[in-house]
């Protein structure tokens, strides 16, 4: 233990504690900007600098550890003056038009400047403006970037893709897409983790809300929406609602209030995905195709972009099933369109997703009879959805729980847990067990595939089904994914079935979810999904009556020709990354 004095208070903390953490323990929150625990402890912004008695130079509290007898001042005249000066310098290179920034009200720089009572900047503005393709789903606004390096670190350390880097040297050092590439040429997975870890508004998703308003306003268009499982765990955070208050039914109500014609829950198409994927898996398993290399899940578009760019030779191992979003889109434009007597062209499919990569995925083409277009016409992130609610001045207090529209109303608990790491695997195993054994397992028989904590990256399990043993593995986060694949490639591990989600903790931790600087909420949000599953009336995808109806009246059986046409895809039909 180490004893030191911080702002005249004596405190004893374990060796190796940072000054920042020690101060926090006695209720002194030292301001910080670039710091992200275990990811970005590089002392770049200098905002957390404090005075160490007896020394002239200030020291940073985020990356220096306590020493016996230290006397620290976190708010001495010197610290105050320098901290203020530092923040003013940062502001001189930041486009301070807060009124038109998506992060206004949720911006760490804005908060620090306000807290420090800074109302003027003595320096001339020096704003950097780099060109950017505004049609790309991920937008970087160099004018807002404060070079905290978090995006570089998150992409390097968590996602192992190194999309961002410091570019140029000396006075001209800046952040840009690494290796002199444009973002279109980069192997960006579009996971959006750089967005959710950006302290300011330098990184954000392409805003598609106006496109949706236009479709709603277009009297010829029938707007049909779907809401992904993970959205219900997080949308309420933007309005300060508790998980109990922030139900999926209220999202449906809000969408209807905005003028959406039909609302559905992606849980339905998650069940549909399980029907296709579980059957596909058993088929591949029986053929012995999973002996050396597993079948990989296909529901995460960030992961698909990753495997296509990093391990193209493994693409044939990926399930050909479309993601629940895309499956729902194609069913909306075929089965559903037919049921309401509307041409697919007149259906505008909208999805509310916790995800940025889904915006990229929606470009995937759909050919169905005469129709040639896209499964999905617009994707909004959870954040865009809440912004749209605000702009329509819909207050959550006035919302009531509204059911999804009929025909595709039902969704099982298995479909709900799709939003958490391990959820797709668990749902698939429940149905695979039924397909193999002819009886249902206990609904929670496969709990072992769930993450144990926010830190869980890779989970392995062996599951007995009669005589067969299914070797399963689950990874979330692309750095963990790379580790797992390298192990498989080196022959150090063998699995039959592997679930991958690009974002740590799964979709609940998605790059389109509400942002809380310095907090990782995936695990807590995931618990919410497991709670909903536990209390769901249907626990198995294969018991969803609306899914039965869909197969009976339209698709035939899983993996049928028609199912293939509508619900499966060719992962090689598009290039990743785009060639220069």
């Amino acid at each position: 233990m180490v004893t030191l004095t911080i702002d005249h208070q004596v405190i004893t903390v374990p060796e190796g504690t940072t000054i920042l953490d020690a101060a926090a323990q006695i209720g002194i929150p030292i301001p910080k900007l670039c710091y992200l625990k275990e990811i970005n402890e590089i002392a770049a912004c200098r905002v957390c600098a404090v005075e160490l008695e007896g020394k002239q130079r200030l020291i940073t509290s985020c990356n220096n550890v306590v020493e016996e007898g230290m006397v620290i001042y976190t708010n001495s005249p010197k610290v105050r003056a320098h901290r203020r000066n530092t923040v003013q310098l940062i502001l001189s290179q930041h486009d301070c038009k807060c009124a038109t920034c998506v992060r206004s009200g949720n911006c760490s720089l804005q908060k620090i400047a306000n807290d420090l009572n800074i109302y003027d900047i003595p320096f001339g503005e020096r704003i950097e403006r780099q060109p950017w393709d505004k049609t790309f789903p991920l937008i970087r606004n160099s004018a807002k970037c404060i070079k905290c390096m978090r995006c570089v670190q998150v992409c390097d350390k968590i996602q192992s893709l190194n999309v961002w880097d410091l570019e140029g040297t000396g006075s001209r050092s800046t952040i840009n897409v690494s290796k002199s590439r444009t973002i279109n040429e980069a192997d960006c997975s579009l996971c959006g983790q750089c967005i959710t870890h950006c302290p300011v508004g330098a990184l954000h998703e392409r805003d598609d809300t106006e496109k949706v308003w236009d479709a709603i306003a277009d009297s010829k268009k029938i707007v049909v929406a779907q809401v992904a499982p993970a959205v219900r765990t997080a949308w309420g955070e933007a309005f300060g609602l508790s998980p109990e208050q922030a139900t999926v039914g209220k999202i449906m109500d809000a969408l209807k209030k905005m003028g959406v014609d039909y609302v559905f829950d992606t849980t339905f198409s998650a069940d549909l995905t399980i029907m296709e994927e579980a059957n596909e898996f058993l088929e591949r398993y029986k053929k012995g195709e999973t002996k050396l290399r597993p079948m990989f899940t296909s529901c995460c578009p960030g992961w698909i972009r990753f495997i296509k760019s990093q391990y193209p030779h493994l693409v044939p191992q990926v399930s050909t099933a479309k993601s629940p979003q895309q499956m729902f889109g194609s069913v909306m434009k075929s089965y559903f369109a037919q049921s309401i007597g509307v041409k697919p062209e007149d259906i505008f499919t909208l999805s509310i997703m916790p995800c940025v990569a889904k915006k990229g995925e929606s470009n995937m083409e759909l050919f169905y009879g005469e129709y040639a277009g896209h499964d999905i016409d617009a994707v909004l992130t959870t954040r865009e959805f809440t912004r749209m609610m605000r702009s329509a001045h819909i207050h959550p207090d006035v919302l009531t729980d509204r059911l999804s529209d009929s025909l595709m109303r039902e969704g099982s608990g298995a479909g709900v847990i799709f939003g958490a790491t391990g959820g797709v695997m668990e749902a698939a195993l429940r149905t695979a067990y039924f397909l193999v054994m002819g009886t249902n397992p206990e609904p929670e028989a496969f709990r072992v595939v769930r993450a144990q904590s926010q830190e869980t990256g890779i989970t392995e399990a062996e599951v007995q089904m009669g005589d067969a043993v299914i070797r399963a593995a689950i990874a979330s986060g692309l750095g963990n994914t790379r580790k797992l694949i390298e192990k498989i490639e080196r022959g150090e591990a063998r699995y039959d079935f592997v679930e991958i989600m690009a974002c740590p903790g799964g979709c609940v931790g998605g790059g389109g979810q509400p942002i809380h600087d310095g907090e990782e909420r995936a695990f807590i949000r995931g618990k919410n999904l497991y709670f909903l599953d536990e209390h769901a009336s249907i626990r198995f995808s294969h018991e969803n009556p609306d899914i039965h109806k869909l197969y009976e009246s339209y698709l035939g059986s899983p993996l049928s020709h028609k199912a293939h046409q509508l619900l499966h895809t060719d992962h090689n039909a598009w290039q990743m990354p785009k060639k220069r």
Partner: protein
Amino acid sequence: MSRLEIPTPSKSQLVIEGLYKDLERRIEASPPGLCPVDITRAFLELCHAQTCGKCAPCRIGLLQLKHLITNVLNGEATMETLELMQQTAQSIMETSDCAIGYEAAHMVYKSLIGCREDYEQHIQVGRCTCTYHQPVPCVALCPAHVDVPGYIALVAAGRYEDAIRLIRKDNPFPTTCGFICENPCEARCRRNMVDDAVNIRGLKRMAADYAGKVPPPPCAESTGKRVAVVGGGPSGLSAAYYLQLMGHQVTVYEMLPKLGGMLRYGIPNYRLPKERLEDDINAILETGVQVECGVRIGQDITIQELRANYDAVLITIGASTDKKLDLENENAPGVISAVQFLQMVGKNEAMDLTGQEVAVVGGGNVSMDAVRTAVRLGAKKVSIVYRRRVADMTALPAEIEGAIAEGVEVRTLQAPERIELDEQGAVKGLWTVPQMISKIKDGRASVVPSGEESVFIPCTTLIVAIGQSIETEHFKNAGVPVERGKIMAEKFGGFANIPGVFAGGDCATGPATVIRAVAAAKVVAANIDEYLGFNHKITCDVEIPDPDLSDRSACGRVQLGEREAGERIHDFNGVEQCMSEKEACQEAGRCLRCDHFGFGLFKGGREKVW
């Protein structure tokens, strides 16, 4: 009124003089890898600030060049901009009235020509393609990438054994390098920005002297693979060490009676005491390396046999033969190559030079070793004969100073002409042609005959120290690629057409330094491991102390002391003295810990594994 006054510099003049010195040191410590265009712009700003303002090309031209180069950096230039810049630079070079102008333009011109691609990239891509790669200057400049800030912190903490363990992760010759490394790590030490580079080698020596015997880490589980290493010098032994740690069984074949190569048979004992060299070699052998001394490749054993009997073969034969002066009578008695001369000393078969006059031709480190050894062998007079000036010598300044202190004469600007023999046919002296220094060519001053009459330098022993070469004959015959006297290994240390055979060290690069030999050994060891189908990692679990948070106020550099010249010339005992613990603690405290502060913390300040 006085008619004349002694001028005293104003306060601000004195301050600026100080800043000039600060800037000089700062340039010396400039981090490697900066954008050439941006740095040229910065130089140009300084040059323009020096203009007197009289002549137009300098006053206006440098300003316009500054604007143009800024356009390039801003991505607002075209290829025509480069043409205009080049034309303007040339015009300033050829029209300015004084060097402030024409030399400034010359700098820009050289940058434009030599770094053309960087300028074009800025224009074509609209972005700077340079990225900062080498966060910790000392680690980046050490060929073997030894964790310098790490072991300095350990020395500061008095954890000498851990320091040795950490160094051995990248260099199994910590003691040897503590004595004789040429310390390229110090060249751009950031401490230069404060006062002076940290004495890195001195601190390594400190660790080596105070650690005592440190056993090597345990070897990985045996792989059953066998590797033959030809040549027991620093690169062969380093590779053997790492391959043993990776679980392979290595046999080293050495032609001389003992291991060590140039470290034993080239470097004199007074620079690297043999018992201290043994410290390193013993630790290497402790890993289980098998050794066969007195075996000469191409004579006692062939590459073909080794290939048949081992899973991989590594050639590390060094550069152990000598270059000739190509003068008549070079084979006469009394004429000897430095390599041979020093090797005889290493074998305890030293010549007795008592009362003799000795001349040594050459200005490199080997020449200094030869003259200082000759002094110790009792020579009456020892002279260095060199065709250029002392400043042009390639030997380390400290070695030259050491030689001069020991009474060696330095005959500069003398080019050997002919060797004169006595009646018995033995050497009697060397005739040289006096030279004068002339034009600078490729950055080095050339010489031309001065026109004076030839000079006779009497000597009964003439030592030739003008470089070493490599015995490539056997390898050439065995099908190993040899070009310009070197074994031409690929970048990974192997050969495209001979799987399983690798080469490294001096024999593949030409004569270099110990630390380069070690660096090459790391490369080949890793690639041999890979070739054998493994992926062993070399690591070190020593925890490195957190940096000290003091203010880093300016403080002089501790230099290692030497025994006094008059005493040391009588024996071959070590010349250099280690620092005291108090000195080491202060010196280690001067380290700015670039692994923790600055860019190091952001982008990999530490290579923990290779």
